[in-house]
């Protein structure tokens, strides 16, 4: 029996509901059951309630107090857009890691100034205002240590700029490859190799641009060469970050 086959008896439905609640059929089947089958949804929720004791069994673990500060900053109205960036927990860690404040300024300031299309060549540059889609930023953090890269995406130009956040080149050999993960849970999309030192500018084609939204993930993997790896041969994840509205 698969998740999309409706069972005939209540016991079978109960087992299917348990499987869905545990995630044994995967997330899509879980969401589909909750969305499409009210009876099965109730059964899944009943199992989730039965299994909640497994979560309650764990000794409570108060989170770092800074987490609430970061959370509060995101639910309160803020006076200005730049403030949002500096309320980001990930970016505070990035600054705490050091060596990237200059990169950030270098990265962001030139991108805010650009010629207006159609303007005279000698006309002064104007500040580009995001009229419909604001710029997105992501700090790409490894599991340990400070940020590896900072990414800034401009939806107006569909240009993704990724800059190294490390003062010194990383030890070891291999190529750093960038992936975009739609909604941070979808199938990774290859965005190509990164320059380990300095800046990489990536043009995002129109088909991919729809996935470049706040909440999507950027992942850096370590690959042996410059060619795209097969799905089953992808290298280890070096860093991960989510795009956030700047």
């Amino acid at each position, binding site marked *: 029996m698969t998740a999309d086959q409706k069972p005939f008896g209540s016991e079978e439905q109960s087992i299917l509901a348990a499987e869905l609640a545990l995630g044994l059929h995967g997330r899509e089947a879980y969401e589909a059951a909750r969305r499409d089958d009210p009876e099965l949804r109730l059964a899944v*929720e009943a199992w989730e309630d039965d299994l909640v004791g497994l979560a309650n069994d764990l000794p409570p673990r108060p989170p770092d107090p800074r987490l609430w500060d970061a959370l509060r900053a995101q639910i309160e109205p803020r006076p200005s857009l730049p403030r949002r960036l500096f309320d980001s927990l990930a970016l505070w860690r990035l600054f705490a890691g050091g060596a990237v404040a200059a990169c950030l300024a270098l990265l962001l300031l030139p991108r805010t100034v650009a010629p207006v299309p159609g303007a005279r060549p000698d006309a002064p540059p104007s500040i580009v205002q995001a009229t419909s889609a604001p710029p997105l930023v992501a700090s790409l953090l490894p599991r340990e240590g400070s940020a590896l890269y900072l990414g800034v995406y401009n939806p107006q130009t569909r240009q993704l700029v990724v800059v190294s956040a490390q003062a010194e080149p990383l030890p070891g050999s291999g190529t750093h490859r960038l992936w975009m*993960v739609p909604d941070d849970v979808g199938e990774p999309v290859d965005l190509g190799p990164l320059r380990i030192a300095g800046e990489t500018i990536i043009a995002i084609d129109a088909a991919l641009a729809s996935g470049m939204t706040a909440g999507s993930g950027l992942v850096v993997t370590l690959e042996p060469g410059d060619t795209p790896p097969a799905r089953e041969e992808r290298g280890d994840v070096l860093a991960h970050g989510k795009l956030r509205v700047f």
Partner: protein
Amino acid sequence: MTPENQDWDPFQQKIATLLARVAGARDRAAFLQLYQLTAPRLNALVTRILRDERLAEDVLQEVYLNIWNRSQSYSSTRAKPMTWMIAIARNRAIDRLRLNRTTAPFLTPIEDIDVADHGLLPLDAMLEHEKGQALRSCIEALEERQRGMIMAAFYEGFTYDDLAKRRGVPLSTMKSWIRRGLAKLRQCLDQRQ
């Protein structure tokens, strides 16, 4: 308070009330109280699943933003509020775990996963709720293999495909093992309710 949740314990009723204030008036003070009451539990679960404190903090932040944004969709007549919040936290943590697995090998051999490997406190030392005690007793009563697979699914987010590949058995065999375990678990829970 609805008739459906009058039987809930005071903690669940308190959480439901706070969620309603968050949903209705976008009450940040209520959200802070909700966070203070529930974050240690959700953090314990997310950290257990991800085994990485910093990653867990990132996910926990997403979980609470999700709760803030989706509080209006919570229906107190359908699920207990902690069950609803724990499902959000667990699903989000497992999503992140699966994302890492798309490019990295699995870290923990399935053979190593068992009750004792989950940082759980002994049966007689931890559980405060009768229902939780029943669950633990019923899980302890399962065969070791069934128990290990069910725990691996809950805490590690493994699907049938993952588990079959990791154990090197046909998918049908894995399904058969787990389904027998789930049937026994259901029977045991029903007898205790």
